[in-house]
């Protein structure tokens, strides 16, 4: 599998079905969420008219979150205020895309772990409406993502919003693991293949790949997941190599992501990039490739990253860069994975210390083996 192993899935299912202790809670939680999601009507892009220049209701459209009217030039091009979300931006497509991605994975986890075919059927029905059905489907591209009024009709920067598709890919992986195949799964495979092709060959896709910072990290995470799903081994290998080069460029010798530390919410952006990198390392691990312990050059490595960030989890007050929204950065699943995968003791110790630091104020850490995380850790 892509994000985990069949053995891990079976083991978690067994404890959930036995329902003892914490797993009993997970079972109840999963069932509750699956029932809630099943009862929800499916919202598609076509339900919301957007100002995409194509005029095509099947095209995903969104506006850059940090862009605002210019007080000095009111009708003119918007200006950027990093870290400040503009509440007037068009975000219905973004919202429904994220809902379908989360709902699909919730349903497939429930279907698998609780052995309930009805949840798989619900997931297939939602996927069909959102991605396959001619009347309501989303076109497989992000041409009009993160448009800016008065500046552009869409930018490659918008591809960051595609990362929610990891949940769909995981859901499809579970369908495959459950040997469920039908017109919808075939349609989904085609959709992923088309999106993959767009990401790799379009001007936007290439631009995002080469942008640098967390955008490139998350782009590669998505193409890696898709390459694994579609069986593109060459693409997968090339992406792993690109990740190594990209990460080496982004890192300072002591393990800081230098493009993230300059942001107005630097702590959360560093965590965001670490999570993307950890996700890539986990997917590579599941494919038998060890990026967790790779030396990217000059001693730069995932261990260095973890050792750099861990003290700030232990003492956020010592964060030396900006965080204008006051949030405290966090990357629990990345730290959990690192605490197991890193071979050097200092790296593992730092990851464990990061996990322990959370427990003081978060008694629910590790409460559920199914979180709303980008990936599903399998030790």
């Amino acid at each position, binding site marked *: 599998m892509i994000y985990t192993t069949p053995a891990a899935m079976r083991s978690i299912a067994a404890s959930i079905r036995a*329902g*003892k202790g914490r797993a009993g809670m997970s079972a*109840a939680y999963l069932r509750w969420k699956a029932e809630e999601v099943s009862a929800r009507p499916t919202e598609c892009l076509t339900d919301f008219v957007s100002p995409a220049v194509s005029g095509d209701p099947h095209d995903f459209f969104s506006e850059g979150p940090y862009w605002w009217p210019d007080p000095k030039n009111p009708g003119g091009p918007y200006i950027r205020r990093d870290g400040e979300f503009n509440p007037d931006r068009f975000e219905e497509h973004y919202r429904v895309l994220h809902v379908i991605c989360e709902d699909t994975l919730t349903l497939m986890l429930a279907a698998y772990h609780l052995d309930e075919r009805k949840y798989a059927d619900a997931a297939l029905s939602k996927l069909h409406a959102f991605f396959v059905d001619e009347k309501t489907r989303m076109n497989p591209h992000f041409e009009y993502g993160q448009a800016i009024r008065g500046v552009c009709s869409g930018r490659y920067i918008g591809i960051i919003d595609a990362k929610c598709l990891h949940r769909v890919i995981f859901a499809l992986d579970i369908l495959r693991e459950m040997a469920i195949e039908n017109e919808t799964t075939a349609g989904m495979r085609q959709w992923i293949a088309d999106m993959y092709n767009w990401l790799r060959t379009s001007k936007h896709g290439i631009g995002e790949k080469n942008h640098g910072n967390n955008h490139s990290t998350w782009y590669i995470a998505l193409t890696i997941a898709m390459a694994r799903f579609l069986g593109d081994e060459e693409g997968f290998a090339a992406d792993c190599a690109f990740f190594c080069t990209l990460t080496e460029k982004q890192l300072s010798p002591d393990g800081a992501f230098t493009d993230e530390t300059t942001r107005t919410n630097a702590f959360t952006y560093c965590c965001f990039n670490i999570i993307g990198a950890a996700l890539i390392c986990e997917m590579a691990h599941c494919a038998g490739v060890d990026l967790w312990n790779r030396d990217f050059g000059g001693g730069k490595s995932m261990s260095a990253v973890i050792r750099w960030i861990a003290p700030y989890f232990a003492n*956020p007050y010592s964060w030396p860069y900006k965080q204008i929204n006051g949030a405290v950065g*966090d990357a629990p699943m990345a730290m959990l994975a690192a605490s197991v995968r890193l071979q050097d003791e200092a790296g593992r110790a730092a990851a464990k210390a990061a996990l322990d630091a959370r427990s003081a*104020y978060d008694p*629910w850490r590790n*409460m559920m083996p199914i979180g709303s995380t980008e990936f599903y850790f399998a030790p």
Partner: protein
Amino acid sequence: MIYANEMTMQKIRDSLRAGKGMDAVHAAWLRWRADEAKAAPSLCVTDYPSPAASGDPHDYFSEGPYWWPDPKNPDGPYIRRDGETNPERYDLHPKALGAVCRDSFYLLLAAYHLGDKCGWAERAMERMHAFFLDPATKMNPNMNHGQAIRNLTPGRCFGIIEAVCMHNLIFALDLCTQLGIENDTVTGTKAWLAEFNHWLRTSPIGIGERDSHNNHSMWYTSLVMALARLLGHDDEFAEDCGRFENHMRRQLDEEGKFIDEAKRTNGFGYCCYNLSAAATACEIAHFAGRDYWNTDFDGRSMSKAVIWLRQYFANPYKWPYQQINGAVGDAPMAMAAAAVRLTDEAGQNAAKAALRSRAAYNPYRDSILGPTLFHLD
């Protein structure tokens, strides 16, 4: 009841047993905690030999957490390093006391809410009997040797802070009443608490803690209030309320800052800790018919304290004082109670906002089954 409203408890119990939606998750959580508590070993003070000056293995013993050897005088009295917990300090009795109080609470809470088909109540009786009543293993009803300091003192009033876990025990006994559980263990444990209550109120160490000036006296007051309610001592309760009112007048400034807590090396944590103590006292008073949540104490109030602290939950980087252990302060149950109890909009909004900011990683923020000391209605 002392910490809750009977009708609310019944409603919660009914929903948990119906087990619809999220209630199924809550019920599973409670079952898990109770099963864990049931499996936990029955460890008593006598299981852990201690250097208590009395030499009595039934005497509770602990050492002050922030006390360390003096490098300039290695064989002399320990010295204080506020906020730096000495990992070598003796803490086996505090852990055992905390465990019996917490485990008894979860066991009886589960028996109440889910019905006792699993021997939960029986296990709670076994634990309480061993820890407080069995002549071979019981703890004496005092803390004369709490927070001792090596080469300085055999015990201090500050050790009484470690009795705060008894709120769990008192709630557990309150649940026994609700469940109609009457036996020698329940009677005996209440009698033990009556003796402890007497010691708290009349011993030099107890009085010392009562008259201390910060979170220690606030927590002490919350505990004696609960004991007065458990034992039906109305006069004591009225006196305790008077003391609580004084704490509110003296410990807060007009902006809502706990003056002595903010000065600590872990000021954020201590402000939260004292707010939790005050909230506990307010809740106990609420169920006795007194509204301290919405009282003005010479310009000081719970609302102001909530609003003041909330700004730092929203942006911990703005904390202007010390927090040497790096932890980010939190007081979820105090905020949950405040969100329901405060009648002024600003206070309510601050409490609700504080709860929302935790929501991102805490799916149980609405759960009434968290590690709480009280249920809300």
